[in-house]
């Protein structure tokens, strides 16, 4: 008898231990579960227990309608008596790490061993199979916990799917701005703007292009042609000596004097350099000078205007009468 009893007791002890350590089966009757829950509060005694929840109210995230629970093992996220992992000695949650879901369980038998308190089960990647595994592990557990576990597992798999989809799409990369550098760049830009003198630069460039005849025949500035012809005369003492050119030379001789005086008033000496170097313009100059010649002769006012013009740097007024309507239409 004596050896049988200890054997049976041993067997019971062994089986009980095995039962405890094996993760799967938990044949505890539901009454035991409810009693354990009550045991958690009853062991503490009556008045000693702080009111639910068991943390400082200031640490509890609240909104107007709900309290949230920040405990990482919480199943629903709300702070309730039934979903607090601290208040319930038998509890289960689903948590995911690196894309895999685990079922965490806590039972009252392990309440004395904080290190081994939470038991972890890896769930399968297959959704239905994982649900079955949850059912298997939480058999005989209260309905509430089982249901909430499955809900949480569903939510987690859904957001994992979404993460995987989003990483395939374009991702917005946030680049931090550095304030000092931003300020520096802004200041430098302002100074560069001032140094650039954009309007002047653009005007200069446009005038240069006009000088180089990129616009061709659109703008007829007789004086322009005049200047060019004169520069050409100055630069080349011997021209190709066409007959037409000789005629123009006489006219130019008359007007050369006052035009040169006017030239010195003008500040754009760049023209001279440019005109000397460019050789293509010669032919066009000849044509324009020819055009000029008949026009001025027809007006017949040029010799009278000679002395008057010396005072004024711009000789435009006379000549522009013909071309003014053209420019006016362009301006409109």
């Amino acid at each position, binding site marked *: 008898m004596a050896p049988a009893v200890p054997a049976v007791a041993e067997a019971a002890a062994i089986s009980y231990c095995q039962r405890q350590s094996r993760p799967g089966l938990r044949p505890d009757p539901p009454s035991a579960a409810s009693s354990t829950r009550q045991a958690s509060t009853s062991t503490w005694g009556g008045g000693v227990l702080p009111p639910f929840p068991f943390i400082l109210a200031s640490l509890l995230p609240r909104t107007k309608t709900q309290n949230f629970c920040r405990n990482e093992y919480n199943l629903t996220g709300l702070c309730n008596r039934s979903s607090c992992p601290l208040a319930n000695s038998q509890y289960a949650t689903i948590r995911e790490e690196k894309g895999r879901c685990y079922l965490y369980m806590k039972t009252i038998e392990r309440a004395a061993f904080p290190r081994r308190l939470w038991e972890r089960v890896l769930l399968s990647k297959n959704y239905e199979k994982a649900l079955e595994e949850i059912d298997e592990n939480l058999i005989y557990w209260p309905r509430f916990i089982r249901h909430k576990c499955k809900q949480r597992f569903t939510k987690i798999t859904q957001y994992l799917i979404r993460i995987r989809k989003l990483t395939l799409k374009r991702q917005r990369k946030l680049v931090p701005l550095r304030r000092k550098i931003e300020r520096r760049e802004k200041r430098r830009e302002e100074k*560069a703007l001032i140094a650039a003198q954009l309007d002047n630069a653009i005007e200069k460039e446009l005038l240069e292009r006009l000088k180089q005849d990129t616009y061709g025949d659109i703008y007829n500035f007789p004086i322009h042609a005049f200047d060019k012809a004169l520069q050409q005369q100055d630069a080349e003492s011997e021209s190709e000596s066409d007959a037409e050119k000789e005629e123009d030379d006489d006219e130019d001789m008359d007007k050369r004097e006052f035009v040169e005086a006017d030239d010195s008033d003008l500040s754009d000496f760049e023209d001279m350099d440019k005109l000397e170097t460019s050789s293509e313009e010669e032919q066009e100059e000849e044509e324009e000078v020819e055009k000029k010649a008949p026009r001025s002769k027809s007006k017949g006012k040029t010799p009278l205007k000679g002395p008057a013009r010396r005072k004024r740097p711009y000789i435009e007024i006379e000549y522009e009468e013909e071309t003014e309507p053209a420019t006016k239409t362009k301006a409109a």
Partner: protein
Amino acid sequence: RMAAKKKRRKEREALGDEAPPKAIPKTIENQRVYDETTVDPNDEEVAFDEATDEFAPYFNRQTVPKILITTSDRPRGRTVRFCEQLSTVIPNSHVYYRRGLALKRIIPQCIARDFTDLIVINEDRKIPNGLVLSHLPDGPTAHFRMSSVRLRKEIKRKGKEPTEHVPEVILNNFTTRLGHSVGRMFASLFPHDPQFIGRQVATFHNQRDYIFFRFHRYIFKSEKKVGIQELGPRFTLKLRSLQKGTFDSKFGEYEWIHKRREMDTSRRKFHL
């Protein structure tokens, strides 16, 4: 320092005609650190390079530029209006909404539809702040940071809108090799034959590595005087990176990246 200046001026006046010529004031442009990649106008190697690079077909007038302008996701009102104005400035350009499409997929489609250039305007906090300019049939991609964007209504002027004429292009101060390639990129946006009747000019002016874009209408009041009137948007660009192929942030071959630690050390050193 004022005292020294006064003394100097008095000395100059005292000397009268014998005074030494006035000293040239030092500016940053004068003191600029000499960049070894400055392009010499007669450089043959550069000329040869330019004849054979990706812009050669454009400059030989084989291709007509066709430009696609788009933004980043969900553009706000300002960016949308800026895109529209930009498309009026650049002839033969089309604005398309992004709608979440990946650039890598847009590019082959663009090439299939004969676009030559792609402009992407990046937006942050409701203002445009970045520009990606990509020359399409396998051309270089330039990424700029854009700042001081002014829409047409914010510019103080009284002109009308830009017309459909092809504007002229002015590229100022692009001296170095890098500047040269960037300048050619800008030039390839516009058709090669400007219509002088329109009297419009688009200017890209580079000053101390900042590229200022302006769009004007000009009138020659006389031979020596021209009046310009600003119309069209304006913005400034600063080059961040230049990539050899089309837009590819991971595997692209970068020709030039702005590295702050190395390149921003000296106040007189510029790269464009």
